[in-house]
């Protein structure tokens, strides 16, 4: 499983990255967490408002910071 956190360094983006790391750790799933900061790459996913969460190349949320519980739900699916 590859999880990508799209964002260019604003505080919300960092918060999402933390939430993702917590969710991965708590659910015990093995996943690679990548940070995508380059604007061209971010927009290639069709995202205009960061932060955005991409799991296995599917955009799960954009423009908001999902909480740890919500991310765990996405990981389980």
């Amino acid at each position, binding site marked *: 499983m590859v999880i990508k956190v799209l*964002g*260019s360094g*604003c505080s*919300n*983006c960092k918060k999402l990255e933390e939430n993702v790391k917590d969710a991965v750790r708590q659910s015990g799933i093995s996943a690679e967490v990548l940070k995508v900061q380059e*604007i*061209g790459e*971010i*927009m*290639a*996913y*069709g*995202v*205009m*408002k*960061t*932060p955005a969460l991409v799991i296995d190349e*599917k*955009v*799960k*949320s*954009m*423009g*908001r*910071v*999902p*909480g740890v519980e*919500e991310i765990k739900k996405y990981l389980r699916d």
Partner: protein
Amino acid sequence: MFSLIDWVLKQIAGILQSGLTGLIAWFCHLFGWGTGFLESQGYIGAVSFFFYDSLKILLMLSLIIFIVSLIRSFFPPERTKKLLGEGKARGILGNIFAALLGTVTPFCSCSAVPVFIGFIEAGIPLGVTFSFLISSPMVNEVALIMLWGMFGWQIAILYIATGVLVAIVSGLIIGKLKMERYVEDYVYQIKMGQAEDVKPSWKQRISDAGIYVLEILKKIWLYVLIGIAIGAVMHGWAPTGWLVQYAGRNKPFAVFVAVLIGIPLYSNAAGMIPIVKELTRMGMAMGTALSFMMAVTALSLPEMIILRKVLKPRLLAVFIGIMTVTIIFIGYLFNIVIG
């Protein structure tokens, strides 16, 4: 219902005021200083204003930001791009549509650059994109509703009308100037993908809005309190009407000066409202005061730095210049139009 809430706020403010006064009195006694000033009109006026307005504004802010965030969750920029893209936004109608959409779209540093790039890449004309980019930070619903509460619906409508007008006109001018080549080159090379419409559920919307309120309050509480403090000092010590001779209705130069002073300053719109209230009490014409508020809130150094990533210096300068001129112009216009 509102008068009940108002009464409660006044009671709490009264308690805080007594507390502060007691503390200062104790402190003064410690050093043998006189405490007469604690009974002066100036002190009482300023402190009561400060506590009452702080409570009222923070309460209103929380409520308004919450409701507005909920509404905004239905207007993500990706959706706006679809509404304006593919040749749908041509000519002046495009500017009008974009300016109106900008007012309901949240503006944050996290979206200014991608939004700009996304719009350009979708084929939305440069001028229309600018109309959107200008109205977004300029028409702030928080400020709108607070203006409504403090000055009545006429002033509130004036505020929206002005903001949208500035956005449309500025966008039109920038479009006519044909400055496409002053957009940073890489912007034209970016290929934007198509994301599935990921719609949050109602539970997510509400929880997001609540979290957002806390975040915003954390970020702006200091600006707001400073704004209220300045207003409080003016309220307590500045006599009513003394500004008329410098910035009253028949003082056209004042608009110009007010806007120039406002540009480098930045404050959150909510923090500006008490200052605007005091400025008008002191005799500044409403149009002048509103354009001062717009200059402070719409143009800011952080925003310019962010836009520099996608705009070459000349275009950025034109952007700032046009907004300045339009704000000044509308300040004059409203001074003439309003009573």
